[in-house]
């Protein structure tokens, strides 16, 4: 049981050791010139004006909500598209019409969002 995992464990160990070695190697071989400017946010750019840990605007959440909904619906399209050839032989035109009905339902939601101004930023 556990024997079949030995190559995997070895590979992980080698990868770990090698990357640790590379990390350390750069400090062995590279020149060391410490400077406070190197630790600032943008070394040769603008001074940062305020903290980056701000609350996001609530508008981002609305975009996120809409994204989740329309993103997940694609999972139903994939199995349909992969099996389309077999399904057409099996059920004919019906299987294409069915997916169009599904798209129309999504379209209803999308048009509703559009008309209610959910996609307007201001």
């Amino acid at each position, binding site marked *: 049981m556990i024997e079949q995992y030995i190559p995997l464990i070895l590979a992980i160990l080698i990868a770990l050791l090698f990357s640790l070695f590379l990390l350390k190697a750069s400090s062995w071989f590279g020149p060391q010139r410490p400077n406070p400017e190197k630790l600032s946010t943008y070394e040769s750019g603008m001074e940062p004006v305020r903290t980056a840990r701000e609350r996001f605007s*609530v508008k981002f959440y609305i975009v996120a*909500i809409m994204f989740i909904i329309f993103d*997940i619906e694609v*999972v139903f399209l994939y199995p349909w598209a992969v099996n389309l050839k077999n399904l057409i032989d099996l059920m004919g035109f019906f299987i294409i019409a069915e997916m169009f009905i599904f798209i129309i339902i999504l379209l209803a939601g999308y048009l509703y969002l559009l008309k209610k101004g959910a996609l307007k930023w201001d």
Partner: protein
Amino acid sequence: MIPLKYYLILSAAFFSIGIIGVLTRRNAIIIFMCIELMLNAVNLTLVSFSSFFGDSSGQIFVFFVMAVAAAEAAVGLAIIIALFRNKLTINVDEVNIFKW
């Protein structure tokens, strides 16, 4: 071949972590994430059963569960935003107008 038992134990562990999270955390969004964890634990159970049986209906069920979870996420976030706009908090302990 990893035995089916391992998958079931893993998903039961995830499910329990989700339950414990729902019962102990007080931030509405984190409670909600724990509920999502529970749903995904169930997805893992379904997928492992389905591949063990060689029966595809479990995987189809997972698609539906994912879609439902997305819809739930949308409704949940909308409800939390509506509450936040009125009350400026999403701590469920402070949401307590109704008492016995």
